[in-house]
């Protein structure tokens, strides 16, 4: 009952309930008008768009690679079956949860204030975002590994490092690779939004035409972003397939 009341209140809060029939009837017309203003796509100089794409990919790649490298040890500490003690376990879980629950934009604003406008702020944001995501999924992947090989390595008298790299990591590798490649795709997507707050990348190129209502130019940037995401997704899929097949 409480949920129903809250949902009803939420409808009012989002102004959905105050929409008149006239407002609703105007929506399709507004969409068509916007599409009309966006088409045909405007010209954007290659000298502006290519460096922006490159910067976006660099931010995404470096942020993801560093994030994955930090997430591996954090994932070990955050996995109940591998963590050396409860203090480290809860600390690692806390760090990973904190990185994940604070939204990207908040991290981006934070890093823009600390290191200034530009791709460094964006890269640091993506790094933290990757830690929040990959740290959790790596920990889960390590916990789900069959305990049999681990027991065998304990029986051999192998070191912790030997057990992890010989028994746990090979078994968790498919899941870790999937997570890492997904992090890369997410990072490219996120970097578009980050540009809107000045954290570098192709998003910064989108900000200007949107502010000045230059919709044809915005359309070109949006289509470029779409093409870039499709290419990254395809590449990521192929890399994933190639690694897992071997």
């Amino acid at each position, binding site marked *: 009952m409480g949920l129903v009341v809250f949902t009803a209140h939420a409808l009012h809060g989002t102004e959905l309930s105050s929409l008149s029939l006239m407002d609703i009837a105007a929506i399709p017309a507004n969409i068509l008008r916007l599409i009309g203003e966006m088409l045909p796509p405007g010209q954007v100089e290659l000298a502006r768009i290519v460096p922006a794409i490159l910067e976006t990919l660099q931010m995404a790649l470096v942020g993801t690679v560093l994030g994955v490298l930090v997430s591996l040890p954090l994932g070990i500490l955050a996995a109940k079956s591998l963590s050396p003690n409860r203090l480290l376990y809860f600390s690692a879980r806390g760090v990973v949860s904190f990185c994940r629950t604070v939204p990207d934009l908040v991290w981006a604003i934070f890093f823009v204030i600390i290191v200034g406008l530009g791709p460094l702020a964006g890269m640091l944001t993506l790094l933290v975002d990757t830690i929040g995501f990959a740290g959790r999924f790596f920990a889960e992947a390590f916990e789900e590994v069959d305990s049999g090989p681990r027991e065998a390595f*304990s029986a051999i008298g192998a070191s912790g490092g030997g057990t992890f790299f010989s028994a746990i990591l090979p078994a968790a590798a498919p899941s870790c690779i999937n997570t890492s490649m997904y992090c890369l795709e997410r990072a490219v997507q996120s970097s578009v939004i980050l540009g809107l707050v000045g954290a570098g990348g192709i998003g910064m190129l989108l900000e200007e035409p949107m502010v000045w209502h230059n919709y044809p130019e915005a359309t070109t940037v949006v289509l470029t972003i779409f093409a870039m995401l499709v290419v990254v997704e395809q590449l990521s899929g192929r890399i994933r397939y190639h690694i897992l097949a071997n």
Partner: protein
Amino acid sequence: MNSGAVVTFDRAAGESLPVRVASPSRVLAESTDINITGLCKTFDGQRQVLRDIHFSIPRGQAVALIGHNGSGKSTLLRCCLRLVQPCSGAVSLLGSDITTLGARQLRGMRAKVGFVFQRHNLVARLSALTNVLHGVQARKKGPRTWFHSIAPQKDREEAMAQLHSVGLANLAERRVDGLSGGESQRVAIARALMQRPKIVMADEPVASLDPLAGDEVMGLFLHRIKDEGLTLLFVSHNLDHALRYADRIIGLRDGRVELDTPSKTENLATLRELYG
């Protein structure tokens, strides 16, 4: 090879103590590899799985551990390596009481014992050769023992020789998740022998195999153990294997040693009494 003096026991008369007990003089012999005294294990503070276990195994002897499901065989084997922590008692392996060892010393002691599991416990995504190579971690540490591609040539050759000895040299590069149950168990045996152990323990090593493959693997296993002159303690539900491959048979019932006898004095009918 056998433990020698035995005490007879008449189950029909209602006695409930061990049927046959190893002679104390043999227990304390210098060549004793495994010596268990007063071993107890209770799970969750209630379920008593092992009750006051005593026996010793001299060097080079092959001992079969038999008994009902839940009689404590696997727990006993795991307690011997402290994979399961005993509640009380002592387990002496090669003269060291493993219940008192620190973590580092315990790893060192485990390294001297090859352990073959029922489900082989290999790393599924890796090749047979890499899995065998991992056995070298009992003797060496560091990244060069973790990955086959950067392992020292000498170790790779030894792993290959171990695979050859179990008849799997032609499948060295095959991932173990593509091997049959019998082949996987042979890889596990090669891995255990790669440790260059002094003692080998095996928990129902052929339980998951069909009778033919089970006989083949067990024969190969015992052949390698005897060749190397190792001490063997293995759990088996296959009484025929116990009679054929063991020098001595220890039977557990409700966590107690109820039978301890040279295998050549037994037959299937007398062993089945333990399950009656």
